[in-house]
């Protein structure tokens, strides 16, 4: 095994010859696809507000659920991965990326069975988001509670 110094020296050595990612082009792609997903979300939200009497605050929940359904189907059809290759963060950051992480992890382990494969691996990739989100919300919630009610 290489020591830490050796690893760092190697990383330094290969840095100038690594291909630079096309920063601007990647950002434009992420902006367009990410913006488009949010635009679709806005249209779905508008639909729920107009036809199902949701308020602006409550319409977020069915909107997110609908986007998750669409992204899960696109993942099953193999389309979302193609979008992801083009869009980079544009398909990762919206909630559809969360759905894609759940569905693709489940699909990948389907051959191991429904219980040990699909159900066990469902949150293999997306679990980190829930863990960090819940821990952060707990900590910030406690700090804010102490500021609001105790001090």
């Amino acid at each position, binding site marked *: 095994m290489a020591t830490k110094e050796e690893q760092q020296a190697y990383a330094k050595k290969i840095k100038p010859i690594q291909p630079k990612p096309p920063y601007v082009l990647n950002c434009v792609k992420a902006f367009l696809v990410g913006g488009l997903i949010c635009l679709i979300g*806005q249209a779905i939200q508008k639909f729920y507000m107009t036809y199902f009497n949701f308020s602006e605050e409550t319409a977020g929940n069915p909107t*997110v659920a609908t986007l*998750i359904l669409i992204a*899960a189907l696109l993942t099953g059809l193999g389309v979302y991965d193609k979008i992801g290759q083009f869009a980079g*963060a544009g398909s990762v950051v*919206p909630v559809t990326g969360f759905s894609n992480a759940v569905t693709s992890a489940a699909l990948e382990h389907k051959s191991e069975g429904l219980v040990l494969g699909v159900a066990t691996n469902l949150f293999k990739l997306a679990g980190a988001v829930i863990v960090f989100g*819940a821990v952060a919300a707990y900590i910030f919630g406690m700090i804010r509670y102490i500021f609001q009610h105790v001090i």
Partner: protein
Amino acid sequence: MEFFWAFVIGGAICVVGQLMMDIFKLTPAHVTTSFVVIGALLDAFGIYDNLIKFAGAGATVPITSFGHSLLHGAMASADEHGFIGIAIGIFELTSAGISSAILFGFLVAVIFEPKG
């Protein structure tokens, strides 16, 4: 106009994620977890609500809103039940997202065959 701002703000949040991936060489998992923590942090200062008012789905669709909803549910429940309310309410607003991700993820995995 609301569609325009949803597009611009939602796209801008994705550009921040893309820069984190390209410049700091973070994996998508690291970007999304950072965004959830940032979303909760912004909600702790009450900033994220203003962003939602301004950008609509441009702020509720990116994963940052997941962190915002976690903290929001926790605080709403804390007002009602005191300190223990944080634990009761933390998943209240995100329930739709998580439960539908479980349901649809499971169903799709059962129905479809893995590609490639």
